[in-house]
């Protein structure tokens, strides 16, 4: 590993937020009651600048040798070694995607920090909030920088916990607590798969280090590869098992079907948190994980990749349908997040490894990047709206464009971006994805087209519902739109949402590290764009002004509407499994068994002894002659027994 002291500073990028967490966690209450916000903004912006510098140095100076981006490992120290081969190393791995993620995480996190400054003003646990944000940023950065599959698992867990803490930030709200628990437990369940996957892969690869593991498992012919493919379980090779299990972990974090149920509830957290964790960064960890191990997937287990593709596209369609029916604006955004992540997933799924085939990979990373920008923007905008209206429900909104001009414009930009209307960022990334899908999986392609139409529709349903439809009247909505910290992030992000599309992304990030030109064929673009426009027009027709068309349509497609409105009854299903099967059929019997059988045996032995001693008390009759009889019987028995022994 070419450890270069020049890049040692990278360790600071995650450590600065951690520092914030420690300071505010320990002393926040006393000393940083109000200043904690500013301090942590300074810290995070420092690490953002460092991240920028890192990106610059990596992409333009160090990273590329003879046209291929190499992975760089500035730091690596052994943390816990199980055997000679297997050891958890704490290291930093720089390669295109991790550097790109560095930028995304620090950038969005910075925006959210600034935004929260006024959004969370007056909260009594203000410092704790920033502490948690710091913790999350730290763990997320650690996750993206991980050089060791076990290291990524650790940060994976940490991210989960910080998300738990932030969802449950309003801990006195039962719904928030429930949502936090749900998020943690569901992802935990997925992580079990991840863990076992790690065990399988590491056992066969005889390493936990990413590069070595990839190198060994992605090159057919190595001993490890053949052992991984050779041994199997239920007729499926160990390698396939391992990779699918690892993907299970990713699916959990990225809310893929059927492990998605926690994401909508997670909206109980403060809106900026949703913007950071449940839109831009944490939820794409799954995509990142698959991308991290992409060579292994695409070279050694294309079947798994195919599965990923279908899961991704179905999730995205499914989420889009639900999103059309929700009325809580944050939930709508949550489902749209699910759907967009679905895009990224199937983009990976339909991608090949080298050269032109790698389009899907690059496209998915590209979409990850742009999505982070405009989805964060959407959430923050929603935050402003909620801040202003004091409600999440669309029925309390409408006609806000006059009261919230800035938000209105930025929100519109974001909506256009996500609907894939040129020249906004979303357009470019989505085009590439569709192109990749079109080349590899026609079915996926058509479903994706449908989904992007739906996307445009529900986003503009949201937009019109908030800013148009009916004139706004709300007594306890206060005067002005918001202070500088509230609006600055919106503006900055909207610039990103407009401009990010023009980045030649393929030059930086591609599956094999070589430069990949991402062409745009106008002919190809016509269909998706027109579908998007169609969706917008339908939304305009239905929601631009208040009318009864939506209800008529809803009642026309009653069944579909209701089931979509109830999220296709997934929560109920899970409830049935846990409350209906796990608790009464496993937990209760176990507890009962322990109290009555195992413990009962112990008590029974005691009472048995007592009983015997009561039974035989007649022996001690208190009369001399029976005693003598016992004496005599004893003598006779013993002598007879002894004679018997002696004769034998």
């Amino acid at each position, binding site marked *: 590993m070419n450890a270069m002291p020049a890049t040692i500073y990278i360790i600071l990028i995650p450590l600065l937020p951690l520092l914030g967490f420690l300071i505010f966690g320990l002393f926040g*209450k006393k000393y940083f009651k109000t200043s904690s916000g500013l301090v942590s903004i300074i810290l995070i912006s420092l690490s953002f600048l460092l991240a920028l510098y890192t990106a610059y140095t990596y992409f333009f100076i160090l990273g590329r040798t003879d046209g291929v981006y190499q992975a760089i490992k500035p730091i690596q120290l*052994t*943390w*816990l*070694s*199980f*055997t000679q081969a*297997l050891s958890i190393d704490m290291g930093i791995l720089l390669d295109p995607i991790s550097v790109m993620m560095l930028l995304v995480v620090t950038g969005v996190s910075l925006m959210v920090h600034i935004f929260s400054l006024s959004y969370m003003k007056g909260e009594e646990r203000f410092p704790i909030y920033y502490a948690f944000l710091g913790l999350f940023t730290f763990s997320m950065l650690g996750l993206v920088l991980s050089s060791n599959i*076990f290291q990524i*698992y*650790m*940060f994976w*867990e*940490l991210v989960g*916990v910080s998300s738990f803490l932030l969802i*449950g930030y309003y*801990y*006195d709200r*039962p719904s928030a*607590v429930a949502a*936090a*628990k749900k998020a*943690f*437990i569901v992802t*935990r*369940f997925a992580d*079990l798969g991840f*863990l*076992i996957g790690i*065990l399988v892969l590491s*056992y066969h690869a005889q390493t936990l280090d990413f590069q070595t593991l990839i190198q060994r498992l992605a090159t057919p012919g190595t001993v490890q590869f053949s052992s991984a493919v050779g041994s199997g*379980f239920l007729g499926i090779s160990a390698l396939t098992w391992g990779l699918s299990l690892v993907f299970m972990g990713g699916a959990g974090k990225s809310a893929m079907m059927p492990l998605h149920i926690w994401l909508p509830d997670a909206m109980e957290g403060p809106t900026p948190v949703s913007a950071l964790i449940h839109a831009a960064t944490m939820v794409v960890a799954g995509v990142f994980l698959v991308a991290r191990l992409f060579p292994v997937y695409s070279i050694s287990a294309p079947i798994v990749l195919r599965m990923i593709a279908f899961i991704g596209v179905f999730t995205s369609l499914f989420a889009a349908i639900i999103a059309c029916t929700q009325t809580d604006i944050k939930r709508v955004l949550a489902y749209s997040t699910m759907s967009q992540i679905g895009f990224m997933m199937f983009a990976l799924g339909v991608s090949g490894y080298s050269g032109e085939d790698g389009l899907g990979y690059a496209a998915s990373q590209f979409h990850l990047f742009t999505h982070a920008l405009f989805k964060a923007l959407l959430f923050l905008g929603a935050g402003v709206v909620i801040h202003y209206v004091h409600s999440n429900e669309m029925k309390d909104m409408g006609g806000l464009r006059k009261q919230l001009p800035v938000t209105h414009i930025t929100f519109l930009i974001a909506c256009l971006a996500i609907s894939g209307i040129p020249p906004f960022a979303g357009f470019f990334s989505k085009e590439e994805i569709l192109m990749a899908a079109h080349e590899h999986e026609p079915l996926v392609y058509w479903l994706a087209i449908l989904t992007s139409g739906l996307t445009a529709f529900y986003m503009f349903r949201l937009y019109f519902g908030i800013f148009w439809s009916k004139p706004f009247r709300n007594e306890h909505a206060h005067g002005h739109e918001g202070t500088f910290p509230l609006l600055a992030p919106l503006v900055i992000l909207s610039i990103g949402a407009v401009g990010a599309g023009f980045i030649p992304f393929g030059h930086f990030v591609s599956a094999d590290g070589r430069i990949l030109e991402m062409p745009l064929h106008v002919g190809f673009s016509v269909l998706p764009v027109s579908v998007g426009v169609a969706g917008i027009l339908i939304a305009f027709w239905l929601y631009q002004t208040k009318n009864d068309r939506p209800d008529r349509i809803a009642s026309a497609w009653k069944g579909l509407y209701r089931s979509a409105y109830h999220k296709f009854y997934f929560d109920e299903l899970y409830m049935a499994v846990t409350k209906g099967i796990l*608790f009464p059929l*496993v*937990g*209760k019997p*176990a*507890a009962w*068994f*322990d109290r009555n059988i*195992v*413990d009962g*045996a*112990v008590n029974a032995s*005691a009472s048995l002894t007592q009983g015997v001693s009561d039974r035989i008390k007649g022996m001690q009759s208190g009369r001399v002659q029976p005693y003598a009889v016992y004496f005599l019987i004893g003598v006779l028995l013993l002598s007879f027994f002894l004679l018997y022994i002696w004769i034998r």
Partner: protein
Amino acid sequence: MNLLILITLPLLTAFAVLLSPKPQHARVFSLAGATLQLLIAVLLFLQYRASVSNGPWAFESMYDWYPSWHIGLHLGVDGISVAMILLTAFVVVAGVLVSWNVEKMPKEFHFLLILLSLGAYGFFISLDLFTLFFFLELAVIPKYLLIGVWGSGKKEYSANKLALMLMAGSALVLIGILALYYAQPAGAGSFDLTLIGKNNIPESTQKVIFPLLFVGFGIFTALFPFHTWVPDGHSSAPTAGSMFLAGISMKLGGYGCLRVATYLLPLGATYYSNTIIVLAAIAILYGAFATMMQNDLKYINAYSSVSHCGFVLLGIGMLTKTAITGAVFQMVSHGLMTALFFAVIGMVYERTHTRLVAQMGGLMKVLPFITTIMFIAGLCSLGLPGLSGFVAEMTVFMGSWEKVETIYRVITIAAGMSIVVTAVYILRAVGQTAMGPLAHEEYKGYRDASWNEKLAAIILVLGILAIGLAPFWLNDLVTPSTELIMKKILSSK
């Protein structure tokens, strides 16, 4: 250093406590003694790291005691025992601190605490089976009295149950030890662990003796189905009592299973390993599921102890170096974590006078410090990275995955499921207690942790973090010793 100090100091402390002029002086003496012991333990650790690699046992010293029975006070430590001693020292200090304000007969209380710790220290440093057994039993009666006199709930019943089951365990151990003594070549009978380790015992004999020793020690560390003293005992014991029980006493068993049963009878261990593994897996899952159904915080933690100690036995049963190391990690980690948890539960109980989860809620508002500690304990117990539990459990998983056959794989995965169940019940307990709206109005008036409670909690948290953030030192400490054990096991085959 001369290891005698590790048992003489508690002895002196105990006397000081007993002879202390005023009852409220007792706690001062015991705290002083415990702290001094902690310092000595740390010193021992440092010296051990410096002096390591000359033979398996460090700081050996030999004193004749009963020459006609070949019994001697043979002291010596290896990495595992050093780790255990450190754990004990931490828990003892915390326990004394937590029980700073015991009103009822403080003198006797602290005397018994110190006596219990004396037993533990002696157990961990003795290389002679007789003295080992002596110290093992020495620790039984203090537990009985602590629970019976200072306990709560159906304390007499629990105390009796605990004392009798542990006594049964040690009876089995005694039989095993005597059998070992006579299993050696005639005349050369000895209780000396190092000597017994040298001469190899025929497999048939090992098959007989191993279950005696393993079950005997296993009862101490909640081997299914001999674990039922754990829930009752822990739940009725006073705070410090539960801390010592779960933090120290259960570790005596695990240590014994490893050091005596497995190390001295490797063939027996290999012969019974599958049985042990199955029992351990049952304990892990079944304990976890049983925990899910409990409503009393102490019961929750007690049952989770059953589940967690299952990992210790699983690691030992797997008989791979990594797994055994993991078992030792789990012992240390579980000791610290569960002691912390019990301490916190005690703090909560002192204030709310209830341990029923349903009665609580929203305590985070009034008791921020205590609830934070509770969260840390809970997260450690569900194996969050950065805290000790993660390190231990992952090591056990890694180690058991080294076994190739499908059955082991299945069992490992089954054990893995427990980390999900653990998450469920921990979040249920902690979430219900700390989060949500404030359950009762009178909870408003509660005062957060006092200095001694804070100190106790912080000490234990430091221990947990030290392992969780930098496991390599513990690894370096333990691995050489586990390697030796493995070498013996492999060479015996």
